[in-house]
């Protein structure tokens, strides 16, 4: 078979060494009535050449972002990806390693995770970060759980403007532990959290309060009032931040956050139908740091005093604490975190700021062009970053199908999330003026 090196003669030698006649004997401890009598009904094995052809055919049934100009966002973004990334991340030593349990022959992975932690700490303005969590949504859920564990309180405040899918994940995680979720309502005109509501909240009941920045609608939230109130009342302030926006916007650290989480897809990872991405998780203060879920790498030395890196604080992990672990996460999103590490390194301090800057400029340009068309308006009035919601008497889902015929995909129709006449447009640095202008031309004709 394809990847099995053993020859028949070797098999024979090994069976003799074991002292059995056939491989079947090795399965004799399986109750025989359970044994499969028939081969599994799977398609016949494909050779490599056939396999490639088959996947090319499957791929051809999709319209990918290299064939279309898209303004979809909503948590997965089409950013420019430096070409160097795949050349590095494709090296077998990164791709085919396991979790670095044997530190002495895993310094490559360990040091890169240590660097990732430092990069995320820098981005978020927090003291420490872990080695990654599945995605932004689960990172937020873990943060909420951690807030409950740390404070002993049983309720968490989420923003009504949170990504709807993240809400679902957080609710599921929390409710399964009998923890309650309440929402801070939002101002439907501004599209951001309602300041009036903050006054009425009983902050002291909550383990933590969450703000998503920018929020699901791409709008900038006033995070400071929430931060101040929840912290004054002994809860944790949790920020779910868009990674790219941190090239421009106040960091969770600057806003007094106790925990910062977010999704790292936009940091060099392809959109890949929504996964794999990575969640990042950062916090401050040694008490909270020791309760972080997931893996952490720390610096140490060997006997000769040479610097080295190891998995550390593992008493938080399920390997050692089993049901008393801070989380059950084991495999995380290491390779995606590594990709983000390369991304942030090669973009660098200035380059990363440039990305945020161009996202702001281009989304503003496109917003203006859309509004010029007439019949469309901004659904919300708060300032936005990269994404904004357009309202118009348009069937946005139908519209996207028609746009597709011209090689375009418009914004994300918000009908599925309860706003039938609205669409969420994302504009990254990957969109050129030419593409945007061409979209406007076509769109004008279809609307």
């Amino acid at each position: 078979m394809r990847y099995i090196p053993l020859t028949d003669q070797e098999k024979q030698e090994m069976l003799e060494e074991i002292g059995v006649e056939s491989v079947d004997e090795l399965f004799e401890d399986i109750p025989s009535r359970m044994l499969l009598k028939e081969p599994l009904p799977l398609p016949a094995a494909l050779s490599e050449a056939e396999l490639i052809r088959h996947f090319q055919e499957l791929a051809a049934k999709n319209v990918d972002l290299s064939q279309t100009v898209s303004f979809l966002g909503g948590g997965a973004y089409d950013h420019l990806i430096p070409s160097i990334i795949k050349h590095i991340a494709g090296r077998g030593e990164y791709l085919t390693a396991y979790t670095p349990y044997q530190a002495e022959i895993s310094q490559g992975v360990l040091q890169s995770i240590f660097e990732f932690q430092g990069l995320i700490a820098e981005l978020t303005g927090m003291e420490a970060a872990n080695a990654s969590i599945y995605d932004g949504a689960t990172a937020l859920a873990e943060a909420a759980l951690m807030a409950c564990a740390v404070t002993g309180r049983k309720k968490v405040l989420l923003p009504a403007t949170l990504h709807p899918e993240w809400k679902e994940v957080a609710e599921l995680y929390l409710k399964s532990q009998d923890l309650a979720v309440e929402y801070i309502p939002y101002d439907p005109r501004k599209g951001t959290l309602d300041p009036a509501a903050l006054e009425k909240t009983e902050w002291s009941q909550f383990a933590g309060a969450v703000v998503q920045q920018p929020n699901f609608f791409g709008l900038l939230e006033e995070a400071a009032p929430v931060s101040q109130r929840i912290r004054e009342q002994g809860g944790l302030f949790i920020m779910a931040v868009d990674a790219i926006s941190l090239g421009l916007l106040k960091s969770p650290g600057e806003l007094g956050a106790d925990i910062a989480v977010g999704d790292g897809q936009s940091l060099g990872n392809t959109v890949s139908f929504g996964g794999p991405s990575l969640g990042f998780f950062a916090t401050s203060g040694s008490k909270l740091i020791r309760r972080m879920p997931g893996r952490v790498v720390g610096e140490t030395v060997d006997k000769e005093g040479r610097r080295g890196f190891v998995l550390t604080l593992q008493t938080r992990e399920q390997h050692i604490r089993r049901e008393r672990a801070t989380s059950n996460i084991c495999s995380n999103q290491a390779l995606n975190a590594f990709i983000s590490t390369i991304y942030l390194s090669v973009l660098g301090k200035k380059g990363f700021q440039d990305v945020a800057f161009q996202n702001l400029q281009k989304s503003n340009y496109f917003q203006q062009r859309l509004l010029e068309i007439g019949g469309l308006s901004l659904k919300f009035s708060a300032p936005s970053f990269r994404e904004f919601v357009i309202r118009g008497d348009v069937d946005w889902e139908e519209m996207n199908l028609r746009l597709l015929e011209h090689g375009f995909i418009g914004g994300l129709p918000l009908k599925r999330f309860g706003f039938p006449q609205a669409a969420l447009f994302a504009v990254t640095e990957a969109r050129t003026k030419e593409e945007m202008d061409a979209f406007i031309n076509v769109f004008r004709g279809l609307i």
Partner: protein
Amino acid sequence: MPKKKGVPLIFERSVPGRRGYRLPKLDVPEVPVDELIPAEHLREKPAELPEVSEVEVMRHYTQLSRLNHGVDVGFYPLGSCTMKYNPRVNEDVAALPGLSTIHPYQPESSVQGALELMYNLGQHLAEISGLAAATLQPAAGAHGELTGLLVIKAYHKQRGEEHRTEIIIPDSAHGTNPASVAMVGYDVVEVPSDERGGVDVEALKRAVGPKTAGLMLTNPNTLGLFDENICDITAMVRQAGGLLYYDGANANAILGIVRPGDMGFDIVHYNLHKTFSTPHGGGGPGSGPIVVTEELAPFLPGPVVAKEGDRFFFTQPEKSIGRVQAFYGNFSVLVKAYAYILSHGSAGLREVSEVAVLNANYMMRRLQDVYYLPYDRACKHEFVLSGKWQKQYGVRTLDIAKRLLDYGVHAPTVYFPLNVEEALMIEPTETEPKSAIDEFIEAMRQIAQEAKEDPEQLKKAPQLTPVGRLDEAKAARRPVLRWQKTE
């Protein structure tokens, strides 16, 4: 004599003003930032990302990679982790633009190929497990466990049996099992193993009862042993009203040979990054789909893919627990697992397990005279030895593991499972050439010899690695978890 230098941190390579990647020039009219965003939202201090050039990034991570082991570098017999070869063609097909650059919110008509792939993969996993319906959303094995337990919880709840709050787990279970149980607010009831390495049926009998929500089992278990009483075990739990959860991390032993569904299980999670050869990536991403019975299918997290005629579409199961992550799962991992299944077909998958088991038994038999073998019976795809014979020379399993690194192979899993003293858990997988297996056996035998004759040598190991044995205690005592700018 110059020593081999360590690799500096990427931050330590930074020089103010140096640039790596540059964007195209802004091609739209520039508007002052503060006209677009009120100043109070703007960052005061930019993130101190490193300032390095492209060549330095390339060198940095090339140099670091050379300090790392991987399946591509050599044998990696890490028990329970199934470190098999990761076919590169699977990376290639997963990277096809038509599969890697599609957006999760595209119109369904524009992603029919992706939906078809997900649908077929779910079907194939159902066949392989002998169960009915799959969700591909969980991002890893532990995430699959969590999902499965949530399904169990929802099922009992719907039946008004919320008093069922206990999950039974054998003492040999992987640590994620009890941790996942805790995550869903259930209690763990641990049962011991018997002298054959299986679940102690008598103890199980005592453990089951009206509070039993279910049992989580790995079979073959973490000792690499198939539980001979599996029929009794599943029957007993079922009779008590519990559901049966199969941790499929060890599925590499049984593909096409025996199906969890036929053993009596209701829920299975697969680790696609183990059994189905998608690379571990230094710790992820994985993918942990779960497959369930017809009865449990309505509880699966959504959306899942359904088919009508030629058309594939997303749908939310009727009584869905909700969702366990944003979007649909680790799609590109799914692509690779699907490629792996198609590359093997039915006979091929069966051969995978046969050879994985053959390799393990061969190694076990060739090592049992020099290392203590706690359970002397045919193993499945892995087996557990104990370093307890070596203790008399003051040598611990950790020393043996570290010494192996000097031989250019990765160490087995050590000190796990917990129910074997000084455990060494060895899993060769089916993709190892016999030469690599024999070399490993030779190294293990030599180390057993060294343990007798020169135990100090082992305590000093490793010596041929980029760094020597690292001080883990120091790392944990005063954690340094990040680079910090020194002013």
